[in-house]
């Protein structure tokens, strides 16, 4: 898997747009040769980031243009993923039964950063072998 490939999706931040985006990412990664477990983990991590966007990012402001961008860049065995929105990051208040999304992403991705300045950007990194194993 040499060279560079990119996938960029701009979608309405609505729950109906999450599954198609996740499926597109899976197909993109499958074409790059990622194995079944890696595909599961990548789509799980991104699925959590996308679910956070549609659940929380625009919850406080109906006037904003509700959208998210999913960007995947594969370069020489390294997969960099970014899920970005222009909404408001909601700091996690500990509540029973909630707050699994970021915990799951941190457990899966080899590297994860969260930038909440002017919207939210979740960046994740995986290698072509197996994520975090």
């Amino acid at each position, binding site marked *: 898997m040499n060279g560079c490939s990119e996938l960029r999706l701009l979608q309405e931040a609505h*729950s*109906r747009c*999450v*599954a198609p985006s*996740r499926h597109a990412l899976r197909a993109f990664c499958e074409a790059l040769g990622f194995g*079944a*477990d890696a595909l*599961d*983990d990548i*789509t*799980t991590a991104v*699925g*959590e980031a*996308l*679910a956070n966007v*549609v*659940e929380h990012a625009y919850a406080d402001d109906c006037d904003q243009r509700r959208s998210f961008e999913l960007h995947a860049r594969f370069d020489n065995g390294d997969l960099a993923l970014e899920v970005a929105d222009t909404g408001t990051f909601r700091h996690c208040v500990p509540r*029973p*039964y*909630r707050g*699994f*999304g970021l*915990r*799951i992403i941190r*457990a*899966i991705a080899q590297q994860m950063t969260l930038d909440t300045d002017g919207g939210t950007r979740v960046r994740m990194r995986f290698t072509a072998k197996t994520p975090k194993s």
Partner: protein
Amino acid sequence: MNERPAIETIRLTGELEVGRKQEIRDAFALRDGARAVLVDLSEVTYADSTALTELLRFCMTAQREAVPIAVVIRTRQFARLVQYAGLASVFKIFEDPGEAFAYLSDCVNA
């Protein structure tokens, strides 16, 4: 007379994700008088933390009511999700629905 089964079954299939949140929440409702519940998720092909949250809420409610729950998960993605969330020891998980049913039968007949 229409007798209720000793073990009730909740079955969900396909992708359990944020777009089906309300449907998942509605499915995970503990019915009055339930003695044991088999949560059959063996044909779930993908799950996210939305499903996990509702499953956890349901199991905690059942625990308070002393209703035993067995969860059937066969998909690797779902099983790994539970592990990543640190919830593997919270649920009574089976891969085989028959084993889950046998476990609940023992609970009901104990």
